[in-house]
């Protein structure tokens, strides 16, 4: 029987649409833009069929929606029911105990496929912070009431105030590969939360994470600010996060307390940043892209010298990886814009910049080359195998 050929592709979400970068010999060919003119926060291939692509899109006028393609982006169809909060009956005020909070989704921000056994299941995180689920491959979406309508939603989120540039975000949706009922989500301005029953009940999971934006000595159960959190693909009990206040690791099988592994970063660089990417098979290896977190948080590399940092021992030691990157540059990398190739043959690493460049390394960051430029501001980058 003939086996369908698959190849790795880069799915890139930008401020002006989505692009697909595909290898052609030693070069990369860009296709797109798809959803031209819309802000695309996430584009993902369904790993269960290698062919379905979901793409979020937020139009400046038209609001948020989602598109779906099953032919490598040649054609797209819009979700017939995109994520939307429940309607608040006219004249009613939101009740703390439950029901609609009266908000409208402002952007669909983060996509995550469900577990391997549950074909067609997807999750989407939004702003204001909402969690949505699709059971039909992204065509229709329903709010996860156990999160969106729980009484503590007001406390765990910023209450829909949306005071940051993109608003309060629900991101980093992680599904335990062994148990599809075991979920994690992270909220900017909220913290990380865990569910063992498919999203019906949740508990905060933030012990040990700093809150430098509060008076010294304040310890809280939630209200933290994870920028990106992941369950390591090589060890479902090993979590990492790049937080507003440092880089952390959590070995969930033995503790619920995060360990600040960013303390081992060079002091002059610090451990502030947005993205964190995992090695496909080594649970001790992750990469981060630090930014200047000393005073005004300009969202630029420390000293204007961009570099990826890698640990290969779970965060005890970090190695600077900047060979081939510009000596001076003032762009940065957003939380969803760095990813490692999960293919077996090699560990390639890629990131996209706010200046519209894509950088790639065929050897885990040892040597970098620019593989695309002149794209719009890059919001996300995912490496996926496409059938």
């Amino acid at each position, binding site marked *: 029987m003939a086996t369908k050929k698959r190849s790795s592709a880069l799915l890139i979400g930008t401020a002006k649409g989505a692009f697909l970068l595909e290898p052609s010999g030693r070069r990369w060919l860009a296709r797109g833009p798809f959803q031209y003119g819309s802000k695309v926060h996430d584009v993902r291939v369904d790993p269960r069929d290698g062919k379905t692509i979901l793409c979020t899109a937020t139009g400046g*006028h038209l609001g948020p929606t989602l598109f779906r393609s099953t032919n490598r982006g040649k054609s797209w169809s819009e979700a017939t029911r995109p994520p939307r909060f429940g309607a608040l009956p006219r004249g009613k005020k939101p009740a703390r105990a439950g029901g609609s909070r009266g908000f*409208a989704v402002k952007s669909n921000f983060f996509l995550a496929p469900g577990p391997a056994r549950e074909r067609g299941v997807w999750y989407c995180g939004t702003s204001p912070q909402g969690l949505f689920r699709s059971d039909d491959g992204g065509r229709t979406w329903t709010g996860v009431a156990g999160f969106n309508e729980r009484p503590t939603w007001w406390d765990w989120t910023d209450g829909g105030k949306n005071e940051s540039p993109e608003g309060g975000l629900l991101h980093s949706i992680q599904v335990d590969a062994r148990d599809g009922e075991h979920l994690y989500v992270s909220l900017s301005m909220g913290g990380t939360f865990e569910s063992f029953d498919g999203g019906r009940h949740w508990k905060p999971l933030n012990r040990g994470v700093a809150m430098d934006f509060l008076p010294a000595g304040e310890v809280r159960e939630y209200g933290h600010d994870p920028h990106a959190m992941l369950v390591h693909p090589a060890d479902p009990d090993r979590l990492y996060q790049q937080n507003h206040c440092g880089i952390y690791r959590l070995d969930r099988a033995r503790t619920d307390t995060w360990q600040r592994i960013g303390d081992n970063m060079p002091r002059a660089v610090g451990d502030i940043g947005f993205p964190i990417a995992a090695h496909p098979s080594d649970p001790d290896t992750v990469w981060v892209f630090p930014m200047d977190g000393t005073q005004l948080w300009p969202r630029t590399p420390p000293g204007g010298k961009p570099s990826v940092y890698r640990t290969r021992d779970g965060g005890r030691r970090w190695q600077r990886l900047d060979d081939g990157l510009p000596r001076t540059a003032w762009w940065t990398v957003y939380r969803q814009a760095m990813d490692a190739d999960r293919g077996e043959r090699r560990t390639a690493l890629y990131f996209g910049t706010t200046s519209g460049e894509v950088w790639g390394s065929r050897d885990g960051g040892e040597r970098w080359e620019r593989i695309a430029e002149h794209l719009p501001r890059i919001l996300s980058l995912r490496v996926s195998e496409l059938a």
Partner: protein
Amino acid sequence: MIVHVGSVLLGYTGGRAELEARGATVAAVLDDLERLCPGLRFRVVDEQGRVRPHMRVYVGSRPISDLSRRIAAGDELHLLGALSGG
């Protein structure tokens, strides 16, 4: 009634800038348009029944936000992207 559609919505109307729809109120006309052009209504009105912040609905030359407004004979509806920035 005649409905004029701004460029931001042409992707939902098959490129037509002018459509014919029925209804006694603006909400009913939007429902009829949804039948003709699936997905269009949710691009104009959010899940709380509010006109989206950067969309504008006019009956004749009057901007409206109350979708229960009744339509009179000869009225024309305009669904336009707002001027939002420079």
